[in-house]
């Protein structure tokens, strides 16, 4: 018997898990609310630490899908939890009876407008990491006009209780270093500053990237959080921070300021979570059965999680998480699900 598996979210986690489960012989249905697959990856240009084109990675993931039924522009209208399965009505009119559901709803980028003091949406020359990435991809953005001095602000909407975002978004430090290098490649004459609270370059080769930024590109790293931005009459920006290493307040006039928007729990993911009555932790991300031993199992039997739906993750972490979720789903569908008589007991013991 081929079990139906519904996968919610067509980003890297959803794509990877779909491909793996399809290969295991399950009947996978993948839904994505936006018009195209790929999630945030589809909007990115190149990836840290090696500068691999995002399109190549995404293309590889999609190629592996072979045969997975997927629906774009599709959301969930209603979910009924039956005794063991889920009866899911989609917005495209299709109803799926699914034996396992994987929520891979990913993340939203923090809305930088919310950090009012940085003036995103108010000052012309303040952009976000996503805007810059789009510019790398398309080359068109009026706000970027041969800047001579460029600043990167780390931790915008991360590690910030004021915005209700306590957690570290994990990827922004490396992204900032990567983007600083790229922008320096684009404008070799420019001076580039990174304002950070703590540099968290934990992954393999990340430190190499940091070293390269210092050594080859002369990027300045300033340990201090930008806390105020004002605008001169000519449109240039004055940023204020403290150089906490020098113990001195600092100001700098910049032509371009890039805000490293952090990861936030996905709003549409939350809507799905509400339908499924899933528990959300204080940080807004979905709760898992056990952070260490069962990071892909939700507290509800038959309901799985992968990727940034359970907290900020880098791309390789997300892909690994998706594969782990596929293995967990397979284990559930072969060991617990088929045993109609002892289902409840097995769930108690082994979920």
């Amino acid at each position, binding site marked *: 018997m081929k079990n139906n598996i519904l996968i919610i979210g067509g980003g890297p986690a959803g794509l990877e898990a779909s491909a793996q489960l399809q290969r295991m012989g399950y009947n996978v249905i993948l839904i994505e609310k936006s018009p195209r697959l790929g999630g945030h990856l589809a909007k990115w240009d190149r990836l840290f630490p090696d500068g691999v084109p995002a399109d190549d990675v995404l293309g590889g993931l999609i190629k592996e899908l072979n045969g997975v039924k997927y629906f774009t522009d599709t959301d969930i209208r209603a979910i009924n939890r039956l005794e063991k399965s889920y009866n899911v009505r989609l917005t495209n009119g299709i109803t799926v009876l699914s034996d396992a559901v994987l929520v891979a709803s990913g993340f939203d980028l923090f*809305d930088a407008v*919310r950090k*009012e*003091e940085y*003036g995103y949406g*108010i*000052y012309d020359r303040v952009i976000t990491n996503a805007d810059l990435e789009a510019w790398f991809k398309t080359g068109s953005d009026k706000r970027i006009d041969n800047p001579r001095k460029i600043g990167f602000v780390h931790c915008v909407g991360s590690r910030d*209780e*004021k*915005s*209700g975002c306590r957690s570290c978004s994990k990827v922004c430090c490396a992204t900032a270093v990567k983007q600083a290098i790229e922008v320096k490649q684009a404008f070799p004459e420019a001076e580039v500053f990174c304002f950070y609270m703590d540099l968290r370059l934990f992954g393999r080769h990340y430190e190499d990237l940091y070293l390269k930024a210092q050594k080859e590109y002369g990027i300045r790293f300033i340990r201090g959080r930008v806390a*105020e*931005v*004002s*605008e001169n009459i000519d449109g240039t920006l004055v940023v204020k921070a403290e150089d906490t290493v020098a113990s001195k307040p600092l100001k700098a006039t910049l032509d371009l300021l890039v805000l490293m928007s952090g990861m936030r729990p996905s*709003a549409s993911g*939350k809507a799905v979570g509400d339908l499924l009555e899933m528990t959300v932790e204080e940080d807004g991300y979905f709760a898992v059965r056990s952070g260490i031993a069962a990071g892909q199992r939700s507290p509800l039997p038959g309901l799985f999680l992968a990727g940034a739906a359970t907290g900020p993750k880098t791309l390789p972490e997300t892909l690994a998480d998706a594969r782990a979720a596929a293995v967990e789903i397979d284990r559930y569908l072969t060991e617990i699900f088929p045993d109609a008589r002892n289902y409840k007991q097995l769930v108690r013991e082994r979920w």
Partner: protein
Amino acid sequence: MTPLNLILAAQAADPEVIDRIPSGYSHFVIPFTIGMTFMLCWIGVGCVRLLAAIPRADRLKFWKSLFIPKTVVRNLKDLFGDCLLHVKIWQRKPLLGYMHSAIAFGWFMLIVLGHIEVALFVPARLNVARGGLFYPIFYRYFVWMNPGHTTLRGSFFFFLMDFFLLYVLTGIAMAVFKRFRSIVLGMRHTTKPSLADRVALYSLWLIFPLRLLAESFTADLSGGSFLTVGVNHFWHFLFGDKLWFTPCWWAYSICLGLFFAAMPFSRYMHILTEVLWILLRNAGIKPSHPRKGVAEAEIYACSSCGLCLDACPMNVQKKNLKYSSVYFIRFLRRHNEKKINAIADKCLMCDKCHALCPVCVDAPALRRAQRATGNNALPYNYSYLETGVSGADVPSKGSERGGVLYFAGCMTHLTPRIIKAVDKVFKAAGIEYSFADRDGGVCCGRPLMLAGRLEAAAKVIEANKKMIEESGCETLVLSCPICYKVFKEEYGLRGIKVIHYTQFINDLIASGKLKVEKTGERIVYHDPCELGRGCGVYIEPRAALGQAGNLVKARKEYDESVCCGGSLGSLTLDTRDRAKIAESSLDNLLANDPDTIVTACPLCLKTFSEAVSNSGRPPGGVAVKDFAEVIAG
């Protein structure tokens, strides 16, 4: 004249009322007389002490104020309006207003009419030596109505007395009901009474029913009107001719005695202290100490009614009830230093309790005075201000007289959209202006004052004042209400018009200098505390916004508006508690489903923006904008 002679003389003239007991005394008056005497002594000593604690100059001002015709008129109006009729409660909560005025005004009339009766029918008894203290109170016990000689005048007074007794009784009935179901009368939270409060409260509840009982039993002898005589007939119907009036008069007297004896230790002290506080308040005397002098009058004028409990924005969380003004004042009364400090520091200083207080007790001012006792003497070093501080764009001495100077203030630099929008509006109206603190300035001093650091505040005020006066500007425009309040009240900038940007921009629109395009946007305006209750600016921002969109109402607005929770007033409220307050304030604003929340304070703006995005409301919901942003279009 001997009492016997008096009776004989009275009978000879066939009077309407005859002194039934020649001595004019009965033992049952003892409890009342003791309680009353004790209370009067207490009050007398208290008044002398209180007035002695007021600084000499203030005391002089007080005595003088009693003879200034304008103040006298105001005093009479306030005494009648605030103490007896409780106009302020009527306006907000009619049922509560009725309840309170029924007890206060009704009782007052009973006392006054009782004395008039005595004066009319047995005038000699007004003499204190002849029982003047208690006789008018127990008038009906002591007199005998001469049958067949009742005049219209006598019946009229009988009627009035019965009428006011009934009036008071309805008030008492409501008060008893309120103790159990306060919400019906419009109060969500009520105060917890202390022991003395309880003794006084239960006595007060009993006084008037017992009075009715006593007077109705006695009505055979003393006469009465519709109520007492009616009830008297009922007793005869029930008990035949056996009536127990002596025990009732005893019980009535005991309750009165208990009430007056407990009064100085209970909330009911306000009945008399209110009078003194109103006189002091109208004389314009401000407290300089959180407990002594004027403050003491304020503290004892508090009736513990608890209207401030529902007013306080912190009380969205029940755990914060204990920080309300009513408890602050109660602990001031009890000299509980530890609790006083904790409560004083917690307050947001939104001033709503003061605005809604039936007797205008300025609890926030007392809290500031309390903060000053701990904070004013703390060390500071502002020597860096003495070298003189210049504003970024401020023209040098006198170079440009008569211009407009804009002072954004510290907080506004964290909300650049206000600065941008103000600039846009000024440009559209063709206003040339200088930006005093483009590159940052010196704080206005209000936050220091709110923290009780008055001496330090004076220093920063001095520095700013110098900078502004030297600029030679004619108009100083402020967009931050915190700055506006202090610039207006404490700076004493001579020859310079200090104006809030909502007023300034409204003037620009009214004079036709600025054209505003009206959209269909549904706008709700939030009154910032310092601007609304603090400076009384309610109309201008609404007038201007009405030109730009459709104003909708919040559930509570004007002086009842709910603080956003971001106020600098509180020293100890933490982020979580503030977020809870912001959420409830937001809820209040969203009552009529607006598209946009508009405010005119950088702190409110930031607080509401954060509250909207942190509340998990769907994106694309309500927008939060600054006043100038809406005007700029």
